[in-house]
Structures are given as C-alpha cells and as structure tokens.
C-alpha cells in the first residue's frame, strides 16, 4: 500500500496561507489539516458568536477556503479543520456558499457538532486540575466545548466528505482519523492509535516542525525562513512515518526540529492524553532518511481516558496596555521614575492598584519575575498592563500613561495604548458516554 500523504495548512488560528496553497498544489496530499483552535481561541469565538449569531468561526475562513478549496478539488485532497470554532454550522454554511461561488459543484461538506456541552455540565462541576468549581469563578460563562476524538471524524470520512469542519476537534485527532480510516486501524489498537497520534502531534503546529519557531542565529540557523514550508507526513500502514516538506520551500526538517516538537506541551512523555489514546512518546525513534526527511517510529499507547476534557470559557472583562519610551542617557532612571509616578497616580486618583503590572522593556519585562534584567539599556519602554471587569479602569489607565507626555519625566515619547476584551478558561472533565458527536453532510 502506498504511503498516505497528510499535510498541515495551518497550525494555529492566524497561521500563514500562501505556503498552504503551495503545499496543496504540489504536495499530492491525501488529506490537508488546518488546526486553528487554542483553548482561548474557542472562548473568544464564543464571544464573537454572542455578539453576532452568524459569527463565532475562524475569521480567516473565507480567504482560506477561497484559496484552498479549488486547489484541494484539483488535487483530490480532503480537508479537515476545526475552523468552525464556536459555530461549526455557520462555518460549514459559509464554506458551501464559497464552494458554489467558485463553481465547485458536488463538493461534499460535512459539519461535525456535539462538542458544545454547555447543557450537560452543571455549575457545581469541579475543575479538572485545581480546587474549586465553575460557580466559584464569578464570571459569566461564554461556552463549554469537549475535545472530540478521531471517532467523531471517521464517520464523515466514511460518508465520502471532501471537506470536514468541526469545532473543538482535538488537534492530533484530525490527523489520526484519516489514517485510521485509510488503513483500517481499529480504535482499540493502541499501538496504531499511538503512532497516528504521534504524527498528529508532530504536524499539528504546522511549521514548528519544519524550521518555524526554531531559528537561533549562530547555533540553529534556518535557511530561507521567510519562505518556510508546511510539513508533510508520509505514513505507512504500520504507522511509521517520514516527516518532510516540499522541495524549494524554506526551513528544514532535522532530528532537532522533530525533537523540539515531540515534547512541545507534553508533560510525561509516556502518558500524553488525547481523546483517542494515552500516547507513549518515550521510546520514539528519530532517524535521518534523506535531506529534509526524518523518519519517526516506535510510538505506542495504552487505553484512552474514560473522560473527555472540556474547556469552559468565561467573559474576562478587559485588558488595557499602554506605553511610553525613553532613550539616551539615564533612560532607565527616567523610565523607573515614570513607573513610580504612574503607580501613585493610578492608586491615589483612581483607586487602581491590583491587576496592574508595570515593566521597563529593554531592562526587565518578560523575565522580570524570574529576576533576570539588563543594566546598560539606553532605549527603554515603560509598559503598563491592567486587567479589569470595568472597561473604564482600562480607559483611565491609558489616559494616565498618555498624560506622561506633559507631566512625566523628561524626554518621554511614543505613547500607544489599546484596550482588548479578555477571556478566562478553565478545564473540567465529562464522561465520554455523555458526549454524542454528530455530522451532517451538504453538497455544493
């Protein structure tokens, strides 16, 4: 049996499009996966849907579908994506409209639902990994989504879907499902479930395995990062896979790029939980199989968890960010004085003292809490962040930072400020029997 060719066309909600089009046109793919959801992405999408019932899916869906649907049809490639986010039905409807606009008559679009479990989870549900219950959060719930596994996707493949759109489809499950479907892997064959999950885990973040998020000049140089290509896995019936990318694209596939992704967001390498399997990556073998070709094998697994993880999203109020820069002699001292002034004014004039952070970018910001700072910076930026349920607090903070231009330390310039909505997410568990995924098919 020839190798099954599966590629990634997005590794997160805002990932690049052009290399995905190139991949479909030249990659001879059986399946293209667009992974577009994080925990917070779903919560933000729920907020979008509450504001407009026709929204709540990935904001780049139209452009992505316009570019990729014709290429997928020409190449005979099936597309699987969780771009539906908080509203897969609307996402599938938009996709059908776009297919019709493009004249792709007969295109079969499947919509997977059932991940929205907000009617099934009570307010006194305890958290998965911390003390307390949902009711303790004290913020409005915007949505609850269970992670659906490969078993929710396979029926749509069996029905011959060309495009499969869902909401909270688990990242690796979107890769495992077509492999299990093609090779007839049984859901109780944990070695195969583990192998397919490894392929999914390695590919789900897109270019993070082809040289993206890897370059460190001088020690980890990456050729032509600007034109980095998305990954392809060539998977055999036994689950052994070659990770590679298109000729002529930038980036690289090496044992080092594969290793960094192997344990990305993994805790115990022998127990990586997904809806499909408790995957064991601890004995994975990684071998060079040619230029930009790396073979992975020896993933395995044990029984899948009896519960599914549910992400609960809450309306988290607003976050304001604002800054002013200082440069030249004593820039640090002037920046520190500005920080003291801002803290006092926010506290005394507005009663704002908590959920407030002030950094001096260039001296100490990302590593401020870790205690790592520079001492010789002459180009620094006061950066203030505030989070509040009340938008007015954020507005007052921005006003105080801008006022530094006339009544702060000398030489400050370059005020910018913005306010964005916030979400909070928590995790709970649900018995898998209570979650009943369904799919509906429509034809363009």
């Amino acid at each position, binding site marked *: 049996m020839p190798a099954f060719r599966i590629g990634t066309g997005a590794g997160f909600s805002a990932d690049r499009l052009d290399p995905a089009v190139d991949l479909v046109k030249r990659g001879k793919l059986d399946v293209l996966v667009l992974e577009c959801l994080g925990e*917070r992405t779903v919560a933000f999408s729920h907020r979008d849907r509450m504001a407009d019932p026709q929204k709540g899916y990935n904001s780049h869906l139209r452009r992505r579908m316009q570019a990729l649907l014709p290429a997928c049809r020409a190449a005979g490639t099936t597309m699987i994506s969780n771009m539906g986010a908080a509203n897969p039905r609307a996402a599938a409807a938009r996709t059908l409209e776009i297919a019709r606009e493009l004249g792709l008559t007969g295109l079969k679009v499947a919509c997977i639902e059932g991940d929205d479990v907000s009617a099934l989870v009570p307010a006194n549900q305890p958290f998965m990994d911390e003390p307390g219950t949902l009711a303790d959060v004290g913020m409005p719930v915007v949505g609850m989504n269970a992670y659906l596994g490969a078993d929710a996707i396979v029926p749509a493949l069996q029905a011959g879907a060309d495009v499969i759109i869902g909401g909270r489809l688990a990242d690796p499950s979107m890769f495992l499902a077509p492999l299990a479907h093609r090779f007839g892997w049984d859901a109780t064959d944990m070695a195969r479930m583990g192998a397919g999950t490894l392929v999914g885990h390695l590919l789900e973040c897109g270019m993070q395995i082809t040289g993206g998020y890897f370059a460190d000049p001088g020690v980890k140089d990456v050729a032509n990062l600007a034109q980095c290509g998305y990954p392809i896995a060539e998977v055999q019936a036994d689950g052994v896979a070659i990770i590679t990318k298109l000729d002529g694209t930038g980036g690289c596939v090496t044992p080092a790029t594969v290793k960094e992704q192997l344990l990305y967001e993994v805790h*115990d*390498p022998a127990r990586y939980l997904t809806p499909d399997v408790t995957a064991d990556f*601890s004995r994975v073998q*990684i071998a060079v199989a040619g230029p930009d070709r790396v073979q992975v094998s020896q993933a395995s697994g044990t029984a899948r968890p009896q519960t599914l993880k549910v992400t609960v999203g809450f309306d988290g109020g607003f976050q304001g960010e604002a800054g002013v820069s200082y440069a030249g002699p004593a820039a640090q001292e002037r920046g520190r004085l500005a920080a003291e002034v801002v803290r006092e004014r926010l506290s005394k004039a507005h009663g704002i003292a908590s959920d407030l952070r002030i950094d001096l970018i260039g001296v100490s910001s990302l590593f401020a*809490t*870790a205690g*790592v700072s520079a001492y010789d910076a002459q180009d620094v930026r006061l950066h203030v962040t*505030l989070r509040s349920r009340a938008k007015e607090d954020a507005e007052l903070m921005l006003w105080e930072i801008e006022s530094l231009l006339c009544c702060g330390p000398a030489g400050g310039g370059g005020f910018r400020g913005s306010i964005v909505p916030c979400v909070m997410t928590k995790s709970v568990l649900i018995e898998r029997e209570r979650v009943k995924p369904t799919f509906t098919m429509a034809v363009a």
Partner: protein
Amino acid sequence: MNAPGRNSRRIIRDIAHARAGDKGNTSNVNVWAYDAADFELLKRNLTAERIKQAFPDLIRGRVERYVIEHLQGLNFVMHDALEGGVNRSLNLDSHGKSWSYLILGLEIEEL
C-alpha cells in the same frame, strides 16, 4: 577572572537547544543536547533542583524532570510557573514562550 580555556562562562545554549510550552499555569521546557557527548554534562547541570532554585520567584511549584536518554533530551515540567498562566498573567509573554531561554541562559558549571 578564570584562567583562559576554562570556559566557565559557557551557557547551556552553547550545548543544547530548547522549546517551551504551556498548559494552564504549568510550563514545560524540553532541552536537547546538540552532541550526545555533552548529554552527561547537560544532565549534571540541569537538575530539577537547580531549575527551581534558579528562579524561585517565578517557579512557585514543584519541578519534574523527565529524561529521554536515547534522544539526549530532558523535559522539565514546572508547576505554578506562569504567573497564573495565560488567563491571569499580566506578563507580555503570558504563555511563557520565552522560558526556554531562561534555561538556555543558565551558566554551565563544570562538574
């Protein structure tokens, strides 16, 4: 000053590469020796205890270290190490994506 050639100012980045990820308020950083010959040195330098002690104000919880011997890799799981995590942290890098370079910036102590 150290004697020339002693290389006591070498940092972990000189012998290893790393990537950070987050789940809630837990950060994990995987670290890999470029050269298998340096893996023992890496293991001796990067113990769970050293990571915890290097950043006590940041890493509030326990640190676990998993060793992937055959790939010359270490995976550090640092609990309560993200200032509340992406939901609560007011750090510009609320995911702790840069934590990999906290570890890569540690000095190699010749052991």
